[in-house]
């Protein structure tokens, strides 16, 4: 009796692989024997071949193969399996406590900064969500081109309103002018008030709760305002203030027509009061000027539910093209949804608190730079420790574990450790939160307490971090060959080694950058504090006049023994400056910084007159003279200071004559270069008294000052401080910066040190036998230390080699942008940073290698 063709069967079996085909083979054989009974053996064999072919290409076999690609018992991830993964993960993490701690701590540090960013974003996303019409409110922003200067503004000209109303999709247009910055005169002192000028429809479009008074009527009447409850408390210590009037320092009287609840802080509007737009004088400028110059003007439109934003945008484009065709300034309008304002593109003159996208991106980059190294550490340490886990994986695979199950097991492990780290990060987040908020400019529009939205983001983030950190090791473990793994030959991956080295070098470059920035920025801070400003700053006390008569102040304070001399001025020099426009004899206007002083000012502050004379006492009520600085002379191309004397310039409509030239000094903060500047003499503008003092007991002196002050102005508090402190205060942003860089640097360095520690511990562990044998043969402790650490020392050298030039150059570029008069990066700074980094690295490495080198060889080798 003939047999079915063996070759065909073999081919079929080979092709079927692991798939279950016993029944199919049986069917083939049975058919063969049926055929053999009626046909020749050859035909039967031929039919067998045909049947085999038909099966090979059949859907049935394809399906059976797919089914067998996973093991018979694990065609899916059952709950039981997941529980097992979790248990194995917890056990393995518990077993390697040291590494778990290293990993969890590193990840926690890395995640903590990102939590700040997430909480910030999560809060900013709630901005303006309390307006009932929020889905259909848009603002109009403008891109203004004048000559070569092209800038984006949050502003839009109010003359656009009528054109907007012509569009049938526009339900309402709200006009806002943000220029309400007045000061209220009160018995207890002066209180600044900021707000917006708006029309009654402001309250139709935006949702605010008015508690007293007729809001709509108020906003339609000139010189009437709606005040918020907090502002009312601030001024009157009460909230039922409707009908009261406020005395403004500009001479106007305004009446409070209504009181409203405080605006929620999560809004891009920020105001203490709303005044009626009709209080503002009608614009005097020509219509074309109104289209071109529109400071403080904002437009909001409420569109119909059905309106399409893109259609409206093209309508705006059309208006822009028609209107600006013949004007020298071009403005393109852009529609921006209410939700996009708070976290939108960078715009100038935003109406209230705003979180610029660029700042957010920088912050996000910093977060990533801190977080990624922490993830790298995990990846590094996990792969390095593959040897320890290889047997487990080999066994799992032999018993039917498939690639994706191993993958899933290790992902589970990573996610477990990430969540442990996440709890740590949350704790750090709680401690960092307040400090962080202090550093932000718009921090009073921010509330970082935990919300549901935030919790959701946090959890998602923790999961994502786990996936990022775990995906590479999990893939690696999943792909291990079980036979090699069981033979302990799994750990041969040279490419994985290289990746690890690159990652480590990257971390240390980053750490080096932070150390160098810290060194250079603290140098810059010291440099600014000790800078020679060109004037005396010692032993001078600044007293704010707060509306009292300069002459009276002078009389009272000069009675004190500690006061040697006294000068008056309009501002504190070196902190900020004001500009005005002047015209020369050819009627060319230029912007120049200026300041009002009296005749004692120049000698008292130690300024040097290069030519001409000082102001004279009793200059009279009308201004006549100015004293200019060297730069002024140079910019007007006057050959020598002496030639400038007697020239006249038109300042705010008055001809003023130059009577003196002073040597250049830093009237502005060091951030700005010295430009044209002049002193002028007008007692009406004095707001500060400067006292030259000589005392050993500053406390007693200030008590004297307070007593004198009480005679002058009993209701107000004395506002006096040392000039030097005021100046130093102006550079306190460096303290914030140093704090921030220091903190971030600490995080980055901690993470890289942790990573290094993990790697070294691992090396010391795996090379324990080698070290012991060498020791038995007489190697010294120093030799052994070098043997174990040389690989890492090499990496550190690499990091310094790459990091030093790159970061030094970056900081060199940044410094003058931060401050015009700045220090530079010196070789010493770089050297100090290198020493710090190497010291940290070497201490870390040797703390572990030394332990290994000192170990008793008998302990290690006993098991052999």
């Amino acid at each position, binding site marked *: 009796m003939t047999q079915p063709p063996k070759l065909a069967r073999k081919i079929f079996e080979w092709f079927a692989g692991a798939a279950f085909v016993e029944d199919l*083979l*049986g*069917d083939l054989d*049975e*058919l063969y024997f049926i055929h053999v009974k009626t046909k020749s053996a050859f035909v039967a064999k031929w039919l067998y071949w045909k049947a085999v072919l038909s099966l090979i290409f059949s859907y049935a076999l394809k399906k059976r193969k797919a089914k067998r690609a996973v093991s018979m018992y694990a065609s899916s991830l059952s709950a039981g399996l997941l529980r097992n993964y979790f248990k194995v993960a917890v056990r393995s993490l518990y077993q390697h406590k040291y590494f778990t701690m290293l990993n969890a701590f590193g990840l926690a540090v890395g995640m903590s900064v990102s939590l700040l960013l997430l909480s910030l974003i999560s809060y900013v996303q709630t901005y303006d969500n309390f307006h009932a019409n929020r889905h259909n409110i848009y603002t109009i922003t403008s891109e203004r081109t004048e000559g070569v200067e092209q800038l984006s503004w949050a502003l839009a000209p109010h003359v656009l309103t009528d054109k907007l109303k012509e569009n049938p999709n526009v339900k309402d247009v709200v006009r806002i002018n943000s220029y309400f910055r007045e000061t209220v005169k009160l018995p207890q002192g002066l209180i600044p008030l900021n707000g917006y000028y708006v029309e009654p429809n402001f309250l139709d479009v935006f949702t605010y709760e008015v508690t007293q008074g007729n809001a709509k009527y108020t906003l339609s009447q000139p010189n009437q305002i709606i005040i918020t409850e907090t502002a009312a408390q601030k001024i009157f210590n009460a909230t039922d203030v409707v009908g009261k009037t406020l005395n403004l320092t500009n001479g106007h009287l305004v009446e409070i027509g209504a009181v409203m609840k405080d605006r929620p802080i999560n809004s891009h509007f920020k105001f203490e009061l709303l005044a009626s737009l009709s209080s503002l004088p009608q614009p005097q400028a020509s219509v074309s000027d109104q289209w071109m110059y529109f400071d403080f003007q904002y437009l909001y439109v409420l569109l119909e539910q059905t309106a399409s934003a893109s259609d409206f945008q093209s309508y705006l484009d059309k208006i822009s093209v028609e209107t600006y065709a013949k004007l020298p300034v071009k403005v393109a309008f852009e529609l921006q949804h209410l939700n996009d304002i708070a976290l939108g593109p960078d715009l100038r003159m935003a109406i209230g608190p705003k979180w610029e996208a660029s700042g957010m991106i920088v912050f996000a980059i910093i977060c990533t730079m801190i977080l990624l190294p922490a993830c790298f550490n995990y990846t590094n340490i996990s792969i390095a420790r593959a040897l320890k886990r290889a047997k487990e994986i080999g066994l799992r695979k032999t018993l039917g574990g498939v690639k994706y199950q191993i993958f899933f097991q290790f992902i589970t492990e990573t996610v477990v450790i990430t969540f442990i780290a996440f709890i740590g990060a949350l704790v750090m987040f709680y401690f960092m939160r307040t400090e962080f908020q202090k550093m932000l400019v718009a921090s009073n529009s921010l509330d970082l307490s935990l919300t549901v939205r935030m919790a959701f983001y946090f959890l998602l983030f923790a999961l994502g971090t786990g996936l990022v950190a775990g995906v590479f090791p999990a893939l690696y473990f999943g792909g291990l060959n079980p036979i090699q793994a069981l033979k302990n030959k799994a750990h041969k991956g040279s490419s994985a080694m290289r990746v690890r080295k690159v990652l480590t070098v990257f971390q240390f470059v980053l750490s080096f950058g932070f150390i160098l920035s810290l060194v250079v920025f603290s140098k810059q801070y010291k440099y600014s504090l000790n800078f020679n400003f060109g004037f005396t700053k010692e032993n001078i006390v600044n007293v704010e006049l707060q509306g009292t008569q300069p002459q009276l102040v002078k009389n009272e304070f000069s009675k004190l023994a500690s006061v040697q001399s006294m000068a008056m001025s309009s501002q504190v020099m070196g902190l900020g400056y004001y500009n005005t426009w002047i015209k020369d004899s050819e009627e060319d206007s230029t912007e120049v910084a200026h300041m009002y002083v009296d005749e004692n000012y120049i000698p008292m502050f130690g300024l040097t007159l290069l030519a001409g004379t000082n102001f004279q006492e009793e200059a009279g009520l009308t201004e006549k003279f100015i004293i200019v600085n060297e730069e002024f002379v140079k910019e007007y191309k006057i050959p020598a200071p002496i030639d400038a004397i007697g020239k006249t310039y038109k300042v705010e409509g008055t001809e003023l004559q130059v009577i003196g030239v002073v040597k250049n000094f830093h009237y502005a903060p060091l951030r700005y270069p010295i430009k044209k500047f002049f002193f002028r003499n007008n007692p009406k503008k004095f707001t500060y008294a400067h006292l030259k003092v000589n005392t050993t007991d500053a406390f007693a002196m200030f008590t004297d000052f307070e007593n004198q002050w009480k005679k002058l102005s009993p209701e107000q508090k004395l506002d006096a401080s040392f000039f030097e402190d005021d100046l130093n205060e102006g550079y306190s942003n460096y303290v914030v910066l140093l704090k921030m860089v220091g903190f971030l640097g600490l995080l980055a360095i901690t993470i890289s040190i942790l990573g290094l520690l993990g790697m070294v511990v691992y090396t010391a562990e795996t090379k324990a036998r080698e070290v012991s044998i060498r020791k038995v043969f007489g190697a010294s402790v120093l030799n052994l230390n070098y043997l174990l650490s040389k690989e890492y020392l090499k990496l550190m050298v690499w990091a310094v080699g790459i990091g030093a030039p790159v970061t030094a150059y970056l900081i060199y570029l940044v410094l003058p942008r931060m401050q015009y008069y700045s220090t530079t990066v010196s070789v010493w700074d770089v050297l100090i940073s290198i020493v710090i980094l190497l010291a940290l690295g070497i201490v870390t490495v040797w703390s572990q290698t030394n332990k290994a080198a000192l170990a008793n060889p008998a302990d290690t080798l006993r098991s052999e």
Partner: protein
Amino acid sequence: MKTYLGELEELVLLTIAALGEEAYGVSIQQDLEERCNRSISIGALHSTITRLEEKGFLKSWLGGATQERGGRSKRFYEITQAGKKAVVEAKSVRDELWSLSKIKLSVK
């Protein structure tokens, strides 16, 4: 979801039902050939069966190894409740169409 039942699928289902306890690969193929004069390859048959199993119309079990199969077991098939429903539905659609047909359908 209503699953579509192809013509061959319907035939295979009915054949399995007709064969009762003895429905496995070879017997189904032979029966189809004898009764319906349909000669299909074993690959095509098993593909159809696999599809029917996926649709949940068939269930199977192993057993009945014989000498002429080289001692290999057979895979027996049985029609499920859902399978029964599907064929009955297919039949009722046809019956309805028959009863509604306007022209006289008869073969002379």
